[in-house]
């Protein structure tokens, strides 16, 4: 049997771990503030967090709560599959603002690098030393339903012990994420 070790949900300025609320801010608090406050609440030193775009900050936070665990687990072979609907559109627009006018044409490398949705997987892998396979998928509904083929195959066939999968979106200052960490017990082929 495959065992869900933990799941993390972020919605409406609240963070839930295994359905238990672990962090909340007033819902009126908009934009980056929630992400930054939730980060400060973790009390970890990781200055790179402030360089990330909102999608990466959100993914970082969800993964951080997913991996806060008493046992030391080797996550090198963990597989990470994430999805969303809007890709990196918010950051795409930010990059485009920098090149819209030829008289103020200053593309920023630290913005451009986040115009790929899979960068969030890279940030999570760097933080947690994960070296397994990673892929980013696009899907309209935010519950990984469209990606059932991927899950089914991964669970049954991929040579890995842990699977992190989930969906994350930052749209109009609303941040929602749902990450799950599975331990895979495979039948030997």
């Amino acid at each position, binding site marked *: 049997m495959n065992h869900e070790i933990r799941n993390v949900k972020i919605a409406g300025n609240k963070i839930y771990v295994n359905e238990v609320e672990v962090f909340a801010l007033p819902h009126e608090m908009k934009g980056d503030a929630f992400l930054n406050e939730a980060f400060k609440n973790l009390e970890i030193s990781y200055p790179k967090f402030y360089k990330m775009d909102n999608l990466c900050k959100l993914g970082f936070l969800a993964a951080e709560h997913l991996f806060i665990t008493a046992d030391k687990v080797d996550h090198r072979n963990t597989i990470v599959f994430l999805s969303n609907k809007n890709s990196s559109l918010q950051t795409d627009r930010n990059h485009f603002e920098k090149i819209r006018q030829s008289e103020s044409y200053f593309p920023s490398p630290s913005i451009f690098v986040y115009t790929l949705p899979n960068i969030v997987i890279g940030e999570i892998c760097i933080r947690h030393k994960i070296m397994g396979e990673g892929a980013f998928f696009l899907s309209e509904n935010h519950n990984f339903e469209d990606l059932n083929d991927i899950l089914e195959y991964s669970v049954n066939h991929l*040579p890995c012990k842990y699977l992190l999968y989930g969906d994350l979106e930052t749209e109009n200052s609303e941040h929602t994420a749902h990450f799950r960490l599975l331990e895979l017990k495979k039948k030997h082929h």
Partner: protein
Amino acid sequence: MITPIAEGGENNFKSVINNESGLKPYNGFGNFKEKLFAGILQNEYTFGNFSKLESLMIRCIKDSIQKSGIELNDPKSLLILATTKGNIDLLEKHKETDPGLLITELGKTIATYFKCYHKPLLISNACISGLSALIWAQRLVTSGKYDNIAVVAGDLVSEFVLSGFHSFNALSPVECKPFDENRNGINLGEAVVSVVISMNKIPERETQSEILPGYGSNDANHISGPSRNGEGLFRSITQTLGSFDGIPSFINAHGTATLYNDEMEAKAFTRASLQEIPVNSLKAYYGHTLGASALLEFVLSDYALRNNTLIGSRGYHKSGLENPLNIIKESKSVEITSFLKTSSGFGGTNASILCRKV
């Protein structure tokens, strides 16, 4: 496939072994005012209300499914679409609120056109997108989930991407030189490629190819800089070659012609004891076509396999690598039984896949 060199796999293969390149010098591109070398399509193939990328993808898929005789409205068929930036050119074409900017909308448009039975699987995984799509097609066909999978991968040259790579100091103003001592960056290119992956043999083909399982691995090192020791690529190759009892006849590398990428690949190949195996990069023919690159290069490598031809690594003259590789200088005929395709990208993502004659 549609590339600046030609339309169709066969035509592209023939041109490439004749050492023709689709890269040309340009004085700029829209608001992007720097001199550049790039592979830009001379014909947009635009039709109906479809965007440039949509039109190209539809044209390619149509050709692939016609040739293989499959239907996408069949419950046992699936479409996988891979792209890094999709219709991002709509931003600079003053269509900033066009829903087509979303890859999910792009997927819907293509799926509606072909009356696909299933929602398409959409992948955006930086420069390895096309390879990720191929890896998943192999998995979902061999597991019996689908009988036929059409894979399409495409990306365009845009101000958006040019300006970004320029800010990374990554663009070469001259034709790129993968693995060469004078390499100084990438050229961008645009291309759309599609293939059908199937359990069934292609009756009219004398030689069939079989795609073996491929795997990915993350460097867990840096979001834009290649790993110095090639860790992720090394792990990916080791896993992909793990269940293979032969030695690949050649490796088609990513070979972007940046200082660090090519060095990283050389290190990974050497660590995997593959340094003697003939290697090529096709970037000096097409430039870096982003999400399309790995699929484009895989398909051409498959032609090379079936035609017993090693494709010369255009742009290479003298080794500029700390770990020297056996770079293929000119196209030549040799007996080929299999090849390894590798790709790496931003986000520390790496993947590889094997293909052999059966």
